Every structure is written in C-alpha cells, then in structure tokens.
C-alpha cells in the first residue's frame, strides 16, 4: 500500500512545486519576451546604446534571480530558463521568443491542470 502511494505522493509534491513555480515561470516568460523586444528594436536602430546595454544586463540579472527562486530547478521549465539565460546578450529576437514561447506553453499547461 505504502509502495503504491509513493508515486502518487511524489507526483503531488511535484505538482505542488510546479504550482509554486508558476509565478516564476510567468516572470521568466515575460522577461524573455522583453529581451526579444529590446533586441528587435535595437536591431532597427530605435534605441540608444546605453539603454540597450543596461536593459540586457537588468533582464539577465532578473532572469538569474527568477531561476534561483525555483523550487524545482531540474524541471522542463528550469532547463528552459537556463537555456534563455545562456543566450548571448545580442541574441536574435526570434531565438529569444522561441524560449519565451516554450515557457508560455508550460505556463498555460500548468494553469489548465
């Protein structure tokens, strides 16, 4: 009986953790899209150099803080956030949107559970 309950308890624990992490997933998704918008507008020459540099630093810093707050860093979303942070500062907007989009899918899935 105890053995049968274990996977259920683990699953419940995981789901609770993911639920707790939902706000961080949502923050990371937003930060990813913000970063993409900054890089897109920078490529179009619509921003100043000081602003672009500062925004990229701030956004990466905040992503780092968000990643460190996760209760389940070794999860699908934890990996995705780390992949986002690993992108170079001037990564193409499309690439950043792909990571942020994946986070959005995870967020939607967790919200509908």
């Amino acid at each position, binding site marked *: 009986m105890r053995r049968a309950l274990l996977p259920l308890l683990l699953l419940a624990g995981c789901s609770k953790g993911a639920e707790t992490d*939902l*706000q961080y997933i*949502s*923050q990371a*998704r*937003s*930060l990813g*899209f*913000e970063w993409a*918008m*900054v890089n897109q*507008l920078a490529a179009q*020459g*619509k*921003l*100043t*150099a*000081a*602003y672009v*540099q*500062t*925004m990229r630093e*701030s*956004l990466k810093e*905040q992503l780092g803080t968000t990643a460190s707050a996760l209760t389940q860093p070794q999860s699908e979303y934890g990996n995705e956030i780390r992949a986002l942070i690993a992108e170079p500062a001037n990564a193409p907007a499309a690439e950043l949107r792909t990571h*942020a*989009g994946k986070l*959005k899918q995870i967020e939607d899935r967790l919200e509908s559970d």
Partner: protein
Amino acid sequence: MNPIELTLGIMTAVGGFVDISQVVFAALAGSVFGYSLIWVFALSTVGIIVYGEMSGRVAAVAKQPVFNLIRHRLGLKLGFITLAASVLSTLITCAAEIGGLGLLLRYLTGAPYLLMATISAAALMGCIWVLPFKWIERIFGLLGLLMLVFVFALTAIDPPWEKIAAGFLPQIPPGLSSKELLNFSYFAVAIFSAVMFPYETYFYSSGGIEEEWGPKDLPTNRITAIVGMALGSLLSIAMLASAAQLFGPAGIGPQIPGTVALQTAIPFGPIGLVLALLGILFAVAGAAIETCMANAYSIAQFFGWIWGRHKKPWEAPRFTIAWVVLLLLSLAIVLTGVDPMSLVQYAIVFSILVLPLTYLPLMLLADDRKYMGKYVNGRLAKVLGWLFFVLIVLMALAALPLFLITSGGQG
C-alpha cells in the same frame, strides 16, 4: 489666472500619479488586463481631485495644513499612530523614487545604479536647499510634462479608441478564473491607493500655505486640482493603453521601468525613448521631493515646529534637519541593495491603511462652518467626499488580505 500658477498642481499630480510605482503598475495593469482597469484610474482621479481641492481650500481659508487637522481631530494618540504609519509608507515611497532615479539615470548613461542613486539624492538635496519653493514646482512640474510623449506615442500607434472609451465604464472582465479575479481586485485596490497616496494632499496643502494662499486663490486651487490631477491621470491611462496594445499581445508584463519606455521608442525611435526616460526622470524626481517634503511637513506640523521652504533653512532648523535626515534615510534604504520595485508594493499597501485616517479629519474640518465660514463644503463636495471615504475604508479593509493572497499581484 496665470497658467504658470498651475505648476503646484502639475507637480503634485505628475509626482503623485507618475511616480516610479505607477509607471510600472499602469503598464503591468494594461498588459495583463487590457483596458478594463481604466475606470479605476478615472474613479480614483475624481477622488483625489475632491480631496486635493478640499485640502487646498482648508489651507487657504483656515490656514490649516492636513497634519495639524489630524492631530486636533484625532487626538494625540491616534494622530501619532497616523503620523508613524504615514511617515513609514512615505519614507518607503521616497526610497523607491530614489532607487527609480538611479535606474533611470543608468538607462540614460549606462553608469552604475547605486552611484546614480547617490548622485540623484545629492542633486535633490541641493535643489531643495537652494531653490525657492516656486522654482521647485516649476522645474519639476514643467519638465515632468515631457511625459506627454506617452500620450503622443499612444496616438501614433492608432489604438482601438472604442475599447479605450469602453474602459472608462466600471467593469470586471468576463471569464476570469477565481485566481485572476483576485489579481484583478488587487490591481484595482493598488491603483486606487497609488492614485490617492496621502502624501499628495500633505504636499499640496502645505504648498498652498507656503504660497500664502487666501480665499481669493480658491478659483486657482479648484482649477489647479482639477487640471493637475486630470493631467496625471491622462499620462497613466496613456501608459496603460499603450501597454494593452503593445505589451499584452507580445507576452510582456513589464517588471522594470525601462521596459515602459519602449512604448515611445516603437513609434518615435531613440528620440522618443530619451524623451520618455527624461520625462519619467523629472516626474520621479518631483515625486522624490514631494515625498521627502511631505514627510518633513507632516512631522513639523504634528509637533508644532516652525516649518516651510519659504523660510531660510536655519530659520526652521528642526524642519530642515527633518527633510535632510529623511532624504538620507531613503538613500540608505536604497544602498542596502533592496529592489525599488518591491519597495513600491509595500508602500502602496501601507498607504491605503493610512488613507481613512488622513481624509476623515480633512473632511470634518471642510464641513465645519465655524472654521470655513461661507467656504464650507458644498453639496457636491460633501456627497463625493463621503462616497469616496466609504470606498477608501472598503479598500483599506481589502488591501492587506489581497496583497497576501495574490503575493502582490504575482500569484
């Protein structure tokens, strides 16, 4: 009336509405809930116009600033509790503004944040020390108007005007889950609180006394309160509507003030960006001065010290020491490395708890014919004043539970 006389109202409103909290909050509200929170801005704007006008009228007729009234009407004990809570919430707000200035200067120059925050605090101290009150109003009130670039940016992106107009009608978006409904309620309460920050009336009424208002200035007071506050509201609504159009569909819930400035870069490029950052910078600097002075006014008025920027600093020594110490304390909070955006959340919740105790004595005195004579509250001011008081009490009761349940609108 000389239009330049409106600067007290403009500085009060721009500094009150468009402080660092409101910049991020208005944009976040728009990106998460579209246009459906516009009515909360509109409603609370009417509230702050009502109380702003009342505080100016009381200052002009009874020569009583708000904290004098609080002490006399609430008694020493309750008055002191109000003073302590108000000083704490306004101090946190002032720290958030100084942190915000550090961030904004970093966006403009790329220099380190804490260095920029320290330079900002030093510059503010110099301004308050050197400049006469009128010049402080004029410089920060008028340069804060650079924020009008947000209104032009909204027009340039051709938003759905019919949806913006519909946003002025009280509403709750259909189909929200219970969690989203709680978040929506938290946003509504927080916007209401941030628009009606009590420091605005402390500063505005003390400013009226600094400028030696009398009954002949009452028409100026009324126009200043209406035009100034409506302008502040317009700027906030423009930021909310642009965010609903540009950020929400792009999956962005702005977390930092730098993101909000993208609203103007999209249509106008680097010039729009720099104007937006400068506009926010001057508005936030105005808010930092406003919060610092409002706190010093409150303390001095409560304890019956000589106060006022119309006096030389050494003619009102305890008042001078108070604002200098408060500014340094705010800087010290920033230098601990705390995130200014999280400071803002606490300031908003603390403020709404103080609101009923701030506005009740004001309304009682404005209703008192013995003090106000023929300038006592008219029927409209009386009805609106009590209506908003009931709303404020309800919001104050709901604020803390909503803050805890939604983790400050995050959950």
